[in-house]
């Protein structure tokens, strides 16, 4: 067996590892639920106010321009967002999942993708969108769902429930790793200390516009570029090593995922950079929900 064949076999084993319907169901509930939480902070429907002069459609919206439709009105977006929220709630509890998830995914593309048609791409929703695409192609309503409760089926193990979780993990590590690669190939290394002073000082200026209060740590970092630079190097190494988190054995997964989570939480709470908070859904795919579910108090009592 050649090295290539062995690598392919190992990759297939990781991708098609049998998981329980419950584990995938929990990931589905978290993915839909986290998008709903995101709507507490973002109002994507408000992009319906944007003037037509700023219309710069991305590839998925260009066909609309060909049929004479350009901007969507505030009312249209609000109606679509309303249906989307209802489908996300149904998706979260696992009601009619087979029908609801495709609706929620298409509407996610429209409602969230619409924000990108005015000259600025919002990267925050890349990962949740990819997760929704995976979930709507999978049997994610077979466990931890109203559907399962109504059918009375038992939760079973299958590779059908394993690959969707692996693909969400893959999308997550790919986004992180490519972010690191853009730094390496974008002449970011070695970083210029002035870049960090600029970045943190600009962050303070932006907090005024965002009307958010920044902790004193942010100001301290603006004056200690060496500390910020060290943290940035650690972040870069974590981003570049992210694919190692696909390997389940060993400590690499724990170290990388904990490090990346720490980095994103630090950005959000210490620096007020909430850009990638919707990406937190990616971390759910790395939690071993089979073990967590088996360890719940009622299961322990039954055991």
């Amino acid at each position, binding site marked *: 067996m050649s090295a290539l064949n062995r690598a392919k076999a190992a990759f297939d084993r990781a*991708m*098609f590892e049998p998981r329980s319907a419950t584990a995938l169901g929990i990931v589905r509930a978290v993915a839909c639920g986290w998008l709903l939480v995101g709507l507490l902070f*973002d*109002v994507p429907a*408000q*992009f319906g*106010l*944007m*003037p037509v*002069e*700023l219309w710069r459609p*991305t*590839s*998925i919206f260009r066909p609309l321009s060909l049929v004479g439709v350009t901007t969507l009105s505030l009312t249209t977006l609000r109606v679509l967002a309303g249906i989307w929220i209802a489908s996300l709630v149904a998706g979260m509890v696992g009601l009619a999942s087979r029908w609801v998830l495709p609706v929620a995914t298409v509407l996610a593309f429209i409602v969230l*993708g619409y*924000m*990108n048609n*005015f*000259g*600025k*791409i*919002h*990267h925050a*929703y*890349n990962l949740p*969108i*990819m997760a929704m*695409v*995976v979930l709507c*192609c999978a049997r994610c309503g077979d466990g931890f769902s109203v559907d399962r409760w109504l059918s009375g089926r038992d939760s079973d193990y299958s590779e059908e429930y394993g*690959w969707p979780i*692996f*693909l969400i993990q*893959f*999308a997550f590590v*790919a*986004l992180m790793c*490519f*972010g*690191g*690669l*853009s730094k390496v190939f*974008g002449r970011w290394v070695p970083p*210029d200390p*002035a*870049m960090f*002073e*600029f*970045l943190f*000082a*600009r962050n*303070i*200026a*932006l907090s005024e*516009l*965002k*009307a958010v209060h920044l902790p004193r740590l942010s*100001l301290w970092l*603006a004056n200690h570029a060496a500390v910020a630079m060290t943290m940035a190097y650690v972040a870069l190494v974590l*981003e570049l090593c992210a694919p190692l988190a696909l390997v389940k054995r060993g400590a690499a997964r724990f170290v990388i995922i904990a490090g990346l989570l720490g980095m994103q939480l630090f950005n959000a709470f210490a620096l007020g950079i909430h850009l990638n908070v919707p990406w937190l859904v990616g971390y759910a795919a790395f939690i071993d929900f089979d073990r967590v579910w088996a360890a719940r108090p009622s299961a322990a009592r039954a055991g």
Partner: protein
Amino acid sequence: MPKLSKRLIPYVLLASFAVGELYAIIFSDETRWPFSSVPMFAQIKPRPTWTEYRPVAVTPKGEVNLVEVGALDYKVQRVLMAGYEKSINQGKVQRGARLERDISDIVASTTRAAGIEDLAGVRIYASTWDLESLRAAQPSRSDDLAYEELFQ
């Protein structure tokens, strides 16, 4: 063979994620969203000052930050103002241009929707922050009036 057909969807999804992301990073193409390269602060160019356009609602009690009162989502304001700034830099915005009237209408409608009824006008400032002063925790913002519309 049945195993291959069962595994076709995961393989297709995996390939499309990998190819889409690679395409985005190689060609720096952001318009194929969600396959956009996520720069994660990789393209920052240091400058001594930072300028942002910002709209405010004018009321008898003073000027109102639209994000602070919940009238406008910050992302919407940022994209709106970035488009406005780009139009000015490209020489596309003349006084009284349609874009400025549109922005004024947006500010007016969202401000009223947020419960502020005594709206007297709309202003857009080009606000510049001196980043050195900001780092020294000193006030640093200077505002240049870019557009003003006062209602009767």
